[in-house]
């Protein structure tokens, strides 16, 4: 049975400087509230893991929380660059960032291996690309039956995975609906699993073949309505595509970025205050 506790307490208790942390969710259910709380608590030297860094890792990187990034696509989807990620890689601002770069297929295989507690994942991938030359974590393995040589990636087992989901019950069972990305595999691969949820309910809706993370694989649940905004929660609120477009302008400039982060994240006490600090119906 998992613990239900405030988000700030969960971050305080489970995220330590230097930890490897995966905030997963593919476009959908990105745990923004948890990422902001990590920034508020000024964690440092994190090894961030995420297929698509998205705005939340742009913010963590720009605020100097990260030492290393494991990823497979680092852009603002449908908009363009993640300017803070670019600035860190191109100019080492605010600090240099070590990259562990994969393809989506490679990173998915690495999460699956992590969830299954295998040391490596196998795929037919990376063929004739320059990625293996720049990442010693992309190797080869021979099939013991056919002799065919395939790509191999080491398992990803984050110290902590953080997800956002629609619902948990009071025992800490978590139900997710909609686009999943690699959330389930990232959750099961982690040593510690924290989930922020829109609602805590007495009983989850009937699941049968739906997606449920059982309470004994969940370390902590935090009730955090709107916790995926400006990403979205299927059935609760839509993705704020306009905000994603605005972010391009905000993040392009270091000082404008810092001013925005100070005003909306550092100066707000929690996610509710963050949401209240945004221009309503205009963000």
């Amino acid at each position, binding site marked *: 049975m998992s613990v239900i506790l405030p988000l700030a307490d969960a971050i305080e208790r489970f995220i330590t400087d230097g930890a490897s942390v995966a905030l997963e969710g*593919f*476009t*959908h259910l990105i745990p923004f509230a948890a990422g902001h709380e990590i920034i508020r608590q000024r964690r440092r030297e994190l090894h961030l893991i995420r*297929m*698509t860094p998205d705005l939340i890792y742009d913010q963590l990187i720009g605020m100097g929380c990260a030492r290393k990034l494991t990823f*497979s*696509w*680092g*852009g603002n*989807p*449908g908009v363009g*660059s993640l300017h803070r*990620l*670019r600035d860190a*890689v*191109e100019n080492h601002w605010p600090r240099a960032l070590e990259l562990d*770069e994969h*393809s*989506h*297929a*490679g990173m*998915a*295989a690495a*999460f*699956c291996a992590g969830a299954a507690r295998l040391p490596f994942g196998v*795929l*037919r*991938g990376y*063929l*004739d*690309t*320059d*990625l293996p030359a*720049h990442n010693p974590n992309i190797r080869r393995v021979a099939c013991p039956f056919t002799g065919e040589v395939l790509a191999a990636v080491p398992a990803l087992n984050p110290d902590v995975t953080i997800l956002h989901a629609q619902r948990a019950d009071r025992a800490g069972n978590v139900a997710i609906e909609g*686009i*999943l*990305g*690699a959330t389930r*595999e990232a959750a099961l691969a982690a040593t510690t699993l924290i989930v922020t949820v829109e609602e805590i309910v007495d009983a989850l809706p009937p699941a049968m073949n739906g997606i449920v993370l059982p309470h004994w694989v969940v370390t902590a649940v935090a*009730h*955090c*309505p709107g916790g995926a*905004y*400006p990403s979205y929660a*299927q059935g*609760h*609120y*839509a*993705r*704020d*595509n*306009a905000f*994603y477009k605005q972010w391009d302008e905000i993040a392009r400039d270091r000082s404008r970025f810092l001013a925005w982060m100070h005003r909306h994240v550092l100066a707000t006490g929690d996610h*509710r205050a963050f*949401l*209240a600090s*945004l221009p309503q*119906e*205009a*963000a």
Partner: protein
Amino acid sequence: MSACTRDEWMTVAAARLLKNRDVCFVGIGLPSAACNLARLTHAPQIVLIYESGTIGTRPDVMPLSIGDGELAQTAACVVPLPEIFSYYLQAGRVDIGFLGAAQIDRHGNLNSTVIGPYERPSTRLPGAGGAPEIAQHARQVFVMLRASKRSFVERLAFRSSAGYLDGHGARARSGAAGGGPRAVITDFGMLAPHPESEELQLVALFEGATVEEARAAIGWPLQLADRIDTIAPPSAHELDTLRALHARTREAHARPVRIPLQNG
């Protein structure tokens, strides 16, 4: 030609390449518009897969991201992302993969990773994402890319995904399961690989575009196919359908999202 933009014409030209039973692995932007235009015109039963895990999706408006809620709501089903890449793409169940890139070379190899040295790039691009394995496994790849000497280059800074490598059958010898880039749709028309050398050559021009215009936009000495087809302009139906799709999309994306500030 005055009636439509080059982006519209590229989208229509790409849509026409798609058949009614094709299974397409769709990327965001022009490919998403092309695939949905095909679905709304001549290919109503086309199967669209987005890498977010949505299979058989039929969005009424186009997603901004690769995983908007609209995709999930209109999908036949939504599966975990690892399954899309292993059980569908790697398993050889995708007919058409659409790719964009920052750079393409004469053999259809693509760069979406860096400009300059990898360790200290002058421009850090988003990275490969799904492309390396789409390029490896899809039966055919279609590339959509606006033409310039910065994008159609003699030599890639980084090979993010493989086209025909150095040509002359190098790809087939490498063991890649898919057929490689069969068409590159760009501002002035279409390139396709020469049957033997596998070098991209000009095979078709939009009506009104010229060989000179094409050569001026390409960073290597562009070869011409034996026959250069003319791509007919978008029909009224194609253009109306595409513009209505864009209008619905613009309206949906402009609709203010209520910030989920509840009594929490």
